[in-house]
């Protein structure tokens, strides 16, 4: 199947098996470009595996994953897709700035990018500090900063706001929207349902399947729920009588 230009990601019949367990089964979806898309669901539902499949680092058993018009993981996408894993993937023994300078060199990003992303994640004052001496939240912001280097068209961020203080979390969501306004697509996972309201579009996931894809407003209208948590429960209850 071909990807049409309006979609940043097109997935058809994706099936992933990890360690003998089916993690994703027959997932198909389209993600619009230039939006902040939230991927919400409980821990262990397959969010990270779906993100890994889109980045192209996951061995896929069946199905197609097209990202920005090419199959996921192709060489062309390695500068166009940025990825921050859930656990901070940075060098603990280096300083914040040394980490960013190295990843910037690997990406071929401009040297001035380092100062820009440091400001964006509010770590300019910690630039000289060794990552292992930072708090957990600061470490994950270093990892997020790496994903902001260069000019990626799609940012895949696995739980980037976990453990952050509310002010900073709000700043980051503002940053995500500024990036989307500039035409980038952001796919942001979270297991915290109250982050849903900050997204342009939502994917609710459970047990390796997408329950629903909708805007936050239409999701609430559709289910008659007051918040995303309630909407999620309503959707699960709707489906539970069906045989597993």
């Amino acid at each position, binding site marked *: 199947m071909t990807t049409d230009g309006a979609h940043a990601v097109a997935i058809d019949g994706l099936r992933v098996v*990890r360690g003998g367990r089916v993690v994703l089964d027959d997932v198909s979806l389209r993600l619009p470009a230039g939006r902040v898309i939230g991927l919400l669901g409980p821990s262990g539902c397959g969010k990270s595996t779906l993100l890994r499949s889109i980045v192209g680092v*996951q*061995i896929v058993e069946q199905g197609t994953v097209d990202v920005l018009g090419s199959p996921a993981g192709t060489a062309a996408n390695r500068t166009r897709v940025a*990825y921050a894993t859930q656990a901070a993937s940075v*060098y603990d023994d280096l300083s914040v700035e040394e980490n960013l300078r190295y990843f910037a*060199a*690997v990406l071929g990003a401009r040297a001035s990018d380092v100062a820009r992303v440091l400001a964006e994640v509010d770590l300019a004052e910690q630039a000289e500090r060794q990552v292992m001496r930072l708090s957990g939240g600061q470490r994950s912001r270093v990892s997020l900063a790496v994903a902001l280097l260069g000019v990626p068209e799609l940012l895949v961020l696995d739980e980037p706001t976990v453990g952050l203080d509310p002010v900073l979390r709000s700043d980051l969501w503002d940053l995500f929207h500024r990036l989307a306004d500039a035409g980038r697509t952001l796919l942001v996972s979270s297991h915290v349902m109250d982050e849903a309201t900050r997204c342009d579009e939502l994917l609710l996931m459970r047990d390796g399947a997408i329950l629903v894809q909708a805007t936050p407003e239409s999701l609430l209208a559709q289910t008659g729920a007051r918040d995303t948590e309630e909407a999620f429960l309503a959707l699960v209850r709707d489906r539970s009588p069906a045989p597993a």
Partner: protein
Amino acid sequence: MSVLRTAATIRRVLQQLRRDPRTVALLLVVPMVLLWLLELVFDAQPATFDQIGPALLALFPLVVMFLVTSVTTLRERTSGTLERLLSMPLGRLDLLLGYLVAFGLVAVVQAALASALMLGFLGLDVAGPAWLLVLVAVVDAVLGCALGLFVSAFARTEFQAVQFMPAVVLPQFLLCGLLVPRDEMGAVLEAISWALPLSYAVDAMQRITVEVTVSTRTLVDLVVVIASIGLSVALGAATLRRRTA
């Protein structure tokens, strides 16, 4: 392959080493202490020391570099930075050569110091030229790095990586001809010993010990060890996967 990305990786690995001065000190000092101990053990038999000293000068830096390289590259895997790098436009060879050159620089210093100690303070007597002894020691230490890079692909934890040292290096030591000349082993063992790079390293060292001039055989041994480094890196690149389960 990209020179800029390889150079950035070399710089990054050296920066990491600089943050860990104790490891660097151990890397440089441990082979020297072991060689000194060897000289003390053979204090009453200086001829034996002259005979086996060069071979152990080939072995000790190799063991130390093997361990440090395999654990460091494994740490890259477990910290998630390997997966991140492989999702970026970094060539697999950029990464491996970055490690090889950075640790190779340490190996050069280490082997040079150990050789200087042997030839100077410990009074090792070799017939051949000293520069060749140093060169073989350096190449062997780099071989240790290359083997460490390769086997770390097969380890999932640091415990496993450490176990690869006795599994990969000690059989080579037993078969390299230092304990029993290789042509006096069984035919099967001798054949196996021809396939192991340490045999060539030790052969080269033993020739330098007794031959005044540089023989073609010594140079061939050296070329085989260098080719083994290339082969280990190529196999290491082949086993590095951008996609994992």
